[in-house]
């Protein structure tokens, strides 16, 4: 593929449709700047500040704009909250729609046929593939991203994290917990190195 892609890029560049330096900037942004740490910071703020959480659930794009993050977040972002009663999961059955602005590039499994085919029909079996088991009474709410709206899950805040700083809370927020295929880490899993 390397040669085939280079051929296309070369032709498009020589014809003046593409500036290779623009491609460099986009690749670099997704390799270094845009990733799940953005969503984790948003979730940590929501855990720490109930007023922000309410604003986030009402209009996520608007609420996140108030955080003045280095990277802007696009329109029509919707945040949904996981609670003991309801567990939300995000999928795109038709292609691979994903909240890139807050989570970065979608992982391969999110774009894979097993995830796209099974999540709307047997989400608990899909969760089992991630090692997640929920109580039988918990309602499962699956959001199929079939338009230009995008979704992010606000996972439940783990117990025994009262008084934690937002930075410390953010280390418990995993990418999968913001898609709904995982839960936030336990307080005991905190490590100073962090891993969002």
């Amino acid at each position, binding site marked *: *593929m*390397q040669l*085939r*892609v280079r051929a*296309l*890029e070369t*032709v*498009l560049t*020589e*014809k*003046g*449709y*593409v*500036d290779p*330096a*623009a*491609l*460099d*900037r*986009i*690749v670099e942004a*997704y*390799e270094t700047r845009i*990733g799940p740490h953005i969503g984790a910071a948003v979730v940590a703020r929501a855990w720490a500040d109930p007023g922000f959480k309410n604003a986030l659930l009402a209009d996520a794009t608007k609420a996140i704009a108030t955080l003045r993050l280095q*990277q*802007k977040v696009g*329109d*029509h972002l919707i945040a949904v909250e996981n609670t003991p009663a309801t567990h939300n999961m995000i999928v795109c059955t*038709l*292609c691979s729609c994903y909240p*890139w602005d807050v989570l*970065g590039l979608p*992982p*391969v*499994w999110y774009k*894979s*046929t*097993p*995830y*796209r*085919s*099974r*999540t*709307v*029909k*047997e*989400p608990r079996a899909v969760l089992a*593939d*991630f090692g997640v088991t929920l109580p039988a*009474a918990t309602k*499962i*709410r*699956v*959001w*199929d*991203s*079939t*338009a*230009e*709206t995008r979704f992010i899950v606000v996972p439940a805040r783990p117990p025994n994290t009262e008084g934690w700083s937002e930075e410390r809370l953010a280390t418990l927020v995993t990418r999968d917990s913001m898609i709904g295929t995982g839960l936030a880490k336990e307080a005991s899993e905190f490590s100073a190195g962090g891993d969002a």
Partner: protein
Amino acid sequence: MNGIHDMGGMDGFGKVAPEPDEPPFHAAWEGRVLALNRVMPVTGEWNIDVGRYWIETLPPDVYLTSSYYRKWHVRLERLCLARGLITAAELASGHAAGAAKPVKQVVHAAKADGLLVRKNYARPATAPARFAVGQSVRTRNMHPVSHTRLPRFARGHTGTIERIQGCHVFPDAIVAEGVERPEWLYTVTFDGRELWGPEADPTLSVSIEAFEPYLEPA
């Protein structure tokens, strides 16, 4: 179209396989393909919906056996050829041979960051929304041969309007007619048993984002 891309509810694809410490790209060319697919629509030759349709129209065997970024690459080659931006001979030789087609805009490095934020697809409404939150609706049993965002698993089923998302560019019209013809967009939620029968998980509900022409009063 009733294509291979529309896979909600299909069986037989096996388990989901999460990859620990997955890198952003698994090879350098994947990043180039991603970036090329981000900058080329700015030429004005196609939009996001048309781009999706050209992935859906890949032959099903190619679709199922190609990685995500390979699909994006093949789609881009085919669109560039179809729009007359490049020729097959140029692609084969790896170099430009003839004059470029005049295009609306080219993204230079200084403006590339603008492509990192999602565009807004909302448009002013031309009519009031037909449905209200809480209303019961039925999705149409429709099978257009062109592009649609109403998945097969959710056709001909009764659900409830959960949210009204505003008026948005209508993907079906962009692809079939080349016009935006904005339509009201709703979050419609279905009980799992409505979609999958009485044996389905009773705790499950599933929503889709449905454009108004997909819906009728229940």
